[in-house]
């Protein structure tokens, strides 16, 4: 598992490629500032890797708001355009209610662990 990119001030972003899946582990508070970083870093990694699946591990995300959701939705749109997909993993008590309320979970699959997500994909 090679590390593709790591960036971040507000969120720590850790990425690696496993097969054709780009695994991105986010950590911190996914608000306006972090969403901007996330967008930039993940777009770069997607361009470089040619990944077909984007797995976003949210288990270390302690906060998300509509700006953070927007950044996830934006990546979902990009992947959909190129027949790829986005999978969410491990959203906790502070994040899951927001994902549900926004309706995002009706279009993006969510698994409890990376293992389950990779097995299902």
């Amino acid at each position: 598992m090679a590390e593709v990119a790591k960036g971040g001030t507000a969120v720590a972003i850790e990425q690696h490629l496993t097969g054709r899946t780009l695994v991105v582990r986010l950590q911190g508070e996914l608000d306006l500032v972090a969403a901007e970083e996330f967008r930039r870093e993940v777009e770069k990694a997607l361009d470089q890797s040619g990944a077909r699946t984007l797995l976003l591990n949210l288990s270390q995300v302690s906060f998300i708001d509509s700006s953070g959701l927007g950044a996830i939705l934006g990546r979902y749109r990009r992947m959909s355009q190129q027949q790829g997909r986005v999978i969410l993993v491990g959203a906790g008590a502070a994040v899951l209610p927001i994902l549900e309320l926004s309706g995002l979970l009706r279009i993006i699959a969510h698994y409890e662990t990376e293992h389950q997500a990779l097995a299902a994909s």
Partner: protein
Amino acid sequence: MEVRNTMQLEIPAVPENVGVARLALGSFASQLNFTLAELDEIKVAVSEAVTNSVVHAYPEGPGPVVVTAEHDGRELMIRVRDSGKGIADVAQARQPSFSTDPERMGLGFVFMDSFMDQLEVESRPGQGTTVTMRKRCQAGQQPQAAAEEGSARSGG
């Protein structure tokens, strides 16, 4: 409401300050008897209101955002005010998925509305926008959140 505590925070409308407001208000709210889940909801509401002032209010460069809050031990009031361009049609702006920015979700007001007990939006084009939110907590002497966190972790 017999005010027990107040705070006022003034910041320029730049993205980095959304977190400053959220953390300050989160700490202020934790003085009341809110659950951890309710504190998370309050943080989202603050984040949305301040983000709106940052993203929408000042197209010509960051102006001031003033966040005030007060509580009487039972009810929390949070007010976010900018002197920006304002909103022409508030009812429309509050609709789910309505956004003037194609990159955004149009869920800011929806979240403020869902997560707080009361939401009031006053705006005059060219004058600015004031968002006032209220949330009540359970009666009780002590904030719950710390105790919850304690029992969630305590092993012995």
